């Protein structure tokens, strides 16, 4: 489904031009659960953002179902994130002035057309899916860290995406709360959602079907069963 080839990304940063990624190739098949690990600063987030179209690489290609992301217009990439891809971050990034329910609906708030009943019903379903149907009307400030992150996951599900990109979603949670989040991600993957997860936690990484390690901007290990043939050969 998603193929990255020879990705190079250099940030015009402070300390010279040390590349964050120096030629990473990775194929993610539909329905896979990929865990990306590596030391801090190794380039995990950068890779995830490039795969999810939030960042464009300096060299190399990302193909989504065979379509080059770089060849798409910015508007098409925005659209992709609004429909096929979803993201969850270490911080929940909920809008503090919207209720949990309204936060789940934020992806639809860029249009003049009012959010319809079907979407509202599905938003409630998504909240139910993460076990928060009873707290739909609460503001984020009145939710615990784990609950906030679950609302963020519900928000990532409301657009019925094909792939979910999660960058250390358990990073700011304690053990048991983090575990809860991992169980949800794992269940979602079993239902067919493709999940790419960046994590520091070896325990969580092992829950994924496939483990990818990044070191110094390069692929250091990939225990993955090779992805289905078509995406590798592109």
């Amino acid at each position: 489904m998603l193929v990255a080839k020879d990705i190079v990304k250099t940030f015009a940063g402070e300390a010279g031009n040390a590349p964050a990624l120096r030629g990473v190739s990775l194929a993610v098949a539909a329905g896979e659960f990929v865990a990306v690990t590596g030391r801090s600063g190794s380039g995990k987030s950068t890779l995830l953002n490039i795969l999810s179209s939030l960042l464009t690489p300096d060299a190399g290609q990302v193909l989504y179902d065979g379509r080059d992301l770089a060849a798409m217009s910015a508007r098409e990439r925005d659209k992709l994130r609004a429909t096929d891809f979803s993201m969850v971050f270490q911080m929940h990034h909920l809008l503090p002035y919207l209720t949990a329910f309204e936060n789940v609906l934020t992806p639809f708030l860029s249009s003049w057309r009012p959010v319809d009943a079907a979407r509202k019903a599905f938003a409630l379903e998504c909240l139910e899916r993460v076990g928060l149907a009873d707290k739909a009307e609460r503001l984020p400030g009145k939710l615990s860290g784990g609950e906030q992150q679950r609302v963020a996951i519900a928000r990532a599900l409301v657009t019925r995406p094909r792939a979910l990109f999660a960058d250390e979603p358990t990073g700011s949670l304690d053990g048991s709360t983090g575990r809860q989040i991992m169980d949800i991600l794992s269940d979602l993957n079993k239902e067919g959602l493709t999940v790419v997860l960046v994590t520091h936690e070896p325990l969580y990484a092992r829950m994924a079907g496939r483990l990818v390690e990044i070191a110094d901007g390069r692929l250091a290990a990939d225990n993955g069963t090779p992805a289905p043939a078509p995406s590798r050969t592109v």
Partner: protein
Amino acid sequence: MNILTIPLRNLRRKLARSLLTAVVFAVGVASVTALVELSKAVGESLESKLAAYGANILVSPKTETLSVGYGGMALGDVSVDIKYFKEDETLAAIAGIHHKDRLSAVAPKFVLLARVADTPVGVIGVDFEQERQIKSHWFTEAGTLSLDSFGLLAGSEAAARLGLAPGAVVPLEGRDFTVTGVLGPTGSEDDKLLFADLHALQAAAGKINRIHFVEVAALCAGCPIEEITAQIASSLPGADVKAMQQVVKSRMMTVDFVKHLAFAVSGVILLTACVMIGLSIFSSVNERKNEIGLLRALGFSKGSVFLLMHLEALLLGATAAVIGQAAGFAASGRLMALLDLGEQAAPTFDPLQFALVFVGVAALTSLASLPPALAASRIEPSQALVML
């Protein structure tokens, strides 16, 4: 829930700040509205008030003028030449000009040089009602300020020199005129003169329907004085029509000054208000970099983010425009009452003007929020989300 939800909720959350910004902007709109209303009213009312302190056009027969002084008393450029106007024709001609609506007073004069108790004195026959229009500053020290036939108003100096008091009888050309009032000092030539009813004086002198000159007060806000003088001159070929430029210029300068001041102050206030809105949105953008990054990650386009920020400013501006105009009207009404501009000066509500100001304010807020909204749309989502 739609695209307005985020800006509205965000404004509501920062209610104090939103209100403060809206109020400051509303005060700006209000003062502009009040100033514009005031200057409209002041322009009219100030000019008609100024007109009450003298005429600005002098219509006299074409003749070699003779400056005549009697007892140190200057009679100006009044000719003692036997050059007259016919009263009826002249007044009809002046009343028939194209800009007749702009004439606030037409005051004909008949001049008689007389001797009272062996002292030479000028007696002016006037149409009292018209005269009052250009001599609203007249007041009496004694007696009443009225002029019936064979009544006589004495200037303060003339009265002192001739020993006149109300009730005194003054024979002029064989007819007895009775002093009805003594004028208070005006600081003008009027102090040295006697004023009688135009027609009574003409009759006494045996010069019925004769006048020496006409003073005209014209309102020049709508058209240049030159046009009015030209129109009078063309309908009165035998007349010398002079605009008293000094009077006109100083009068228009006063009116223009008031207007320019109002517009300059309005401009400064609006500019300040715009900068305030711009800064407010800028700080909103800076505080919400994460939020904007997130929205971009959720698939909001740059255009949507731009629109969100823009809408926030527009909502503020629209609120301010409505409140500000309402307050401006109220304030200008109070101010006009305070400044005693008279009954004709009342703020007039004009729906078209309201709509225009509304659109104008919306355009200004749009403009002011352009830089911050652009900055918001340029926020790099991956960066805004990672950096915490």
